[in-house]
């Protein structure tokens, strides 16, 4: 977990890049990202439409990953789905981490009544199975798009970072440098942002990656249940379409395998990045490695 060790930005990045887990994760992630962006830039959006290609064909020239029963190219779908899935992850992780950290800082630093109220709120949200709520909300919102999906997921991603940040802040605020800052007349918010935040940045980075990962998976889960963005392609929606069109039964492996593998690779890369971040910012873990 996070430490009170403050480093210069340069040293931290250098250390990160020397961490093999982080590096490998980053390379896989960047490869996926490059593929997605390149694919997205080079494909004509019109070719995403059904009937753009002959239907039910295995990989071949013109359709490198084959086509589905509606005459859509799997490669084109992947090129749309990867960035959209990443978008969901990015928005949801940002929302979750930002609001989680904010609530955690405020709750931990100010204490008292504010803390009591926020703590109950965090505990309540932590104890409610969020998937249940996500399913309910996604089912109630008629016709979600990718952004709405990200907001829905992000709305349930904040309690866990909030609780951990709060715990850290409880310890940090008793340290001498915070006392000094307080005595020198800094306001509460100033202390949070200028004194406490730098100590939490590394931890927040690791949490961000973790939230990113779980948001991508949650999106896939919801989409698999048929609650995803019907008019847009995400990795989850690709698996959903393949499943609901009985692609496995009909041996159309090129339909379901690419999104599943893309999900696995994405998961792996983010997990390695997360491990790397954790190791670099936590000396105890580093010495074990």
């Amino acid at each position: 977990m996070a430490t009170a060790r403050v480093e210069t930005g340069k040293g931290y990045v250098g250390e990160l890049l020397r961490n093999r887990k982080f590096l490998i994760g980053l390379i896989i992630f960047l490869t996926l990202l490059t593929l997605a962006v390149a694919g997205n830039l080079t494909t004509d959006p019109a070719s995403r439409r059904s009937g753009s290609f002959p239907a039910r064909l295995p990989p071949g020239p013109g359709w490198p990953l084959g086509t589905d029963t509606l005459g859509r190219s799997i490669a084109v779908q992947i090129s749309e789905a990867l960035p959209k899935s990443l978008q969901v992850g990015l928005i949801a992780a940002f929302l979750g981490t930002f609001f989680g950290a904010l609530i955690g800082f405020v709750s931990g630093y100010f204490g008292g009544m504010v803390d009591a109220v926020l703590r109950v709120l965090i505990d309540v949200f932590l104890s409610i199975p969020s998937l249940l709520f996500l399913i309910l909300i996604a089912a109630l919102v008629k016709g979600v798009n990718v952004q709405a999906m990200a907001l829905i997921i992000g709305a349930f991603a904040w309690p866990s970072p909030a609780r951990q940040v709060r715990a850290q802040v409880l310890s940090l605020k008793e340290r001498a440098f915070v006392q000094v800052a307080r005595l020198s007349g800094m306001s509460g918010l100033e202390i949070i942002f200028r004194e406490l935040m730098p100590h939490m940045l590394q931890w927040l980075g690791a949490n961000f990656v973790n939230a990113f990962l779980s948001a991508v998976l949650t999106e896939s889960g919801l989409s698999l249940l048929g609650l995803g963005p019907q008019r847009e392609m995400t990795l989850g929606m690709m698996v959903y379409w393949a499943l609901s069109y009985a692609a496995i039964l009909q041996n159309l492996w090129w339909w379901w395998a690419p999104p599943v593998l893309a999900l696995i690779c994405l998961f792996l890369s983010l997990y390695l990045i997360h491990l790397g971040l954790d190791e670099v910012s936590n000396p105890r873990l580093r010495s074990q490695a």
Partner: protein
Amino acid sequence: MKKLAALLVLTLVGTLLAACPAPTPQIIEKEVVVEKPVVATVVVEKEVVVEKPVVETVVVEKVVAPTPAPVSAQELARRQTLNIAIGGRIADPTNLNIYAPGVSRSSTGLHQMIYEYFFYQNLQTGEYIPWLAESYEYNDDFTAITVKLRDGVTWSDGEPFTPEDVVFTYNLLLNNPGMTWAAEVSKWVGSVEKVDDLTVRFNLKKASPRYHLNREAFPAVGIWGGITILPKHIWEGQDPLTFKSSNPIGTGPYTLAKATETAMTYERDEDWWGTKVFGVKPAPKTVNFEYLGPETNVALALAANEIDTPFIGILSLGSFKEVVKRNANVRAWHKEAPYAWLDPCPRPLMVQNATPPWDKKEARWALSYLINWQAVVDLAYEGTTVPSWGIWPFYDGNQPYFDAIADLLEQYPTATYNPDKAAELFTSLGYTKGADGYWTSAAGERLKVRYVVNANSTEEMKVSAVLADQLEAGGIEVELQPLTDPVLADTILRGEYEIKLHSFCPGYIFDNLELFHSKYYVPLGEPAPWYERNSFRYKNEAFDAILDEMAVTPPTEVEKVKDQFRRIMAIWLDELPVIPGVQAPALVPFSTTYWVGWPSADNPWNMPVSWWATFNLVINGYPSPETGEWVGGIRSAFE
């Protein structure tokens, strides 16, 4: 140490990456997990219901059966069970009020198993089969119809089925306009009276030589369902809209044993009146209507002999072919391509005529020109059907009427893809195509449609994916709304859609036109009488006038009807209130592993449709109206 760990991580990553291009067994496991729980639930339910009676029957059958091979109790129970896969969950298994809007009568099995009807039509043979009734007779000017009821019919609780029940049901319908199809009943029926203990007379509000064919006003089923007679002794004093009828009492050969969100289980009524009157007994002891999940689950269940037949629109051609490869006992109506039976209810695209700009015929025609139905057929239906110029099934009986308007069809090319023509029409309405490719009104608003889809229908979901792509390509923004009942029913009836693909039943020349009569017009936001009964809110006086003329012309006067059809179609085609789409293929496989005698193209004694009320006759067979001889009925494959 450090190096070793790094090496390990590298190896792990390498292995995983190497696994990337090839499908790994891990993934397959993932998919299977989704299916398992569903199947497991079903089996448990079946066991719970069937267990007890089986043990008794086992002994009897073992003595009689010539095959000495030992058979497990579970297998014996399966041999007496008919399993039907339905397309979606039962919204509320405790609400089995067949007249409450939004309650499905077919997925629940209510109108196949519990309730029965005066007459059943056999579309394959053209027979009008007396069942709860024995005969009907019109008076001279077709303003009254007298129906003779069958002697000996009883409700499943033993009470006799009487004219009082008929009178009670009709009074209920006349006094409660919110009941399903009550509007159509009120339109035709002035009163229903008991003549004697076995005779009722329907006094009609106006002459109608076709009343006995009107499923929404008379207890006769041609297609799908009909008016259902209720037991007075159960329903009296209940509010017909809120009464849940959780334990439904009907005259049918089965009684409800268990109702859950995923399965309705029916047990044979050993005291069924039909056994006493006709001397027959339905072969299956238990009938299940089960929701198994998506297409793959249904296909695998059919291949594994866990179900005997699925509902319409669940299995695609690709899945069906895969099932046949795995289970040689499975076939559809035709043994070879095109496999499917032609359902009498074609699938046009309903357009909300009350919402601008779709209130203008130019807009509706433009929409029609934007759609490539052949592509919809090829992609969504995998070639199992054909585009349709109109809203009637391509049956031989209808052909003379189609021939009568051949020139009109040339003048008005429906189901024809012509984007240039569409652009011309949109431009004439003041729309311009923006840089983003979407049509925009003079006020700067993007042309947008709410496309309501039945999320439980594989067919509708597939079509919607293709149609939405086509419309977006044509410059119309599409907002897809996949809904399920009861929200779905409410949304459609209140007209809260711009487009919705829907089946147009019953498929007769006159009846399908009559759906467009403005007497069914209700303002937006109020529930229309029925989905295809003008929930699209069309209104045209000249059209109504010809319809009223047709309504009093006996169907036997073919030439006169043809002339009327020509005149009315000149208006219909010009205005295009709904957009003709495709003929309805019914790819409904059945398995002969446990049950034989299914109707098929080789032996077309009935319709192969387990979601219609006529399925009662598929299970039981029926007395031929001409010879009295017993026809059909499914039998056990082990007898």
